[in-house]
C-alpha cells in the first residue's frame, strides 16, 4: 500500500536552532514528494517538491528537504528556526497506482518554535 508517515505529532525547537520535520514514504515507482505548510485558519501553502535530480531541494522561506532513497525519507529542514515558522507541516507523495494521480497526505506535524 502506498503511504506517507510523519512520525512526530509535534516538534519543539528554540528560535535560532536548526529544525527537522520527518517524513517517510512507501510508494511504487519513482516518488514525487511535497511539503506544505499551514498557518492557523489558512489554507495550505506549497513549500517545495522533489521530482528528480539533486537530493537536496530548496524551497520557500529558507526551508529545504533531503530526499533519501535508501531510507525512503524526505525530511524537511531549516538551519535556523524563526518563531514565525510555527505552523502545521504536511508531507505528501503522489500516488503512482494505475491512473490514480492523487496526493497521499501525512497526518501533519505541528512545529512550535519558542522564543
Amino acid at each position, binding site marked *: 500500500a502506498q503511504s506517507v508517515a510523519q512520525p512526530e505529532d509535534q516538534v519543539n525547537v528554540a528560535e535560532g536552532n536548526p529544525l527537522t520535520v520527518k517524513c517517510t514514504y512507501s510508494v511504487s515507482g519513482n516518488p*514525487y514528494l*511535497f511539503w506544505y505548510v499551514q498557518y492557523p485558519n489558512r*489554507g495550505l501553502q506549497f513549500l517545495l*517538491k522533489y*521530482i528528480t535530480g539533486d537530493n537536496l531541494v530548496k524551497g520557500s522561506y529558507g526551508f529545504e528537504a533531503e530526499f533519501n532513497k535508501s531510507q525512503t525519507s524526505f525530511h524537511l529542514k531549516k538551519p535556523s528556526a524563526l518563531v514565525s515558522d510555527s505552523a*502545521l507541516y504536511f508531507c505528501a507523495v503522489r500516488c503512482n497506482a494505475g491512473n490514480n*494521480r*492523487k496526493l497521499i*497526505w501525512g497526518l*501533519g506535524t505541528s512545529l512550535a518554535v519558542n522564543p
Partner: protein
Amino acid sequence: EADIYQTPRYLVIGTGKKITLECSQTMGHDKMYWYQQDPGMELHLIHYSYGVNSTEKGDLSSESTVSRIRTEHFPLTLESARPSHTSQYLCASSVSGASYEQYFGPGTRLTVT
C-alpha cells in the same frame, strides 16, 4: 494575479439548510479538489475533478456533491446541513503534468448549529 478563491471564508448555519461553498481558480488548472479538515488535523479528500463534466468521490465518504461545468469553478453543495458537517473545507487545484503539486484556497470554516 492567478489565484484560487473560496467563499464564504466563514459560515454559521442551522441544521437542515442547503449550502453551497464556492471555489474558483484563475490559473487555468484542469484538476480541482475538495478536502475536509478538522482544525489541526489531517486532510481528507472528499471530491476531485480532472476536467469539465468530470467528478469523482474521494477517499472519505461525504454527503456533499460537486459539479464542474466550467474549468475555473468547482462548487460543493450540502443539501441538508448537519452538525456533523462542521469542519473546514479546503479547495485546491493542480495542472496536468509530471509534478501534480496542488495549490490551495484559504478555506471555508463551516459551523452547523
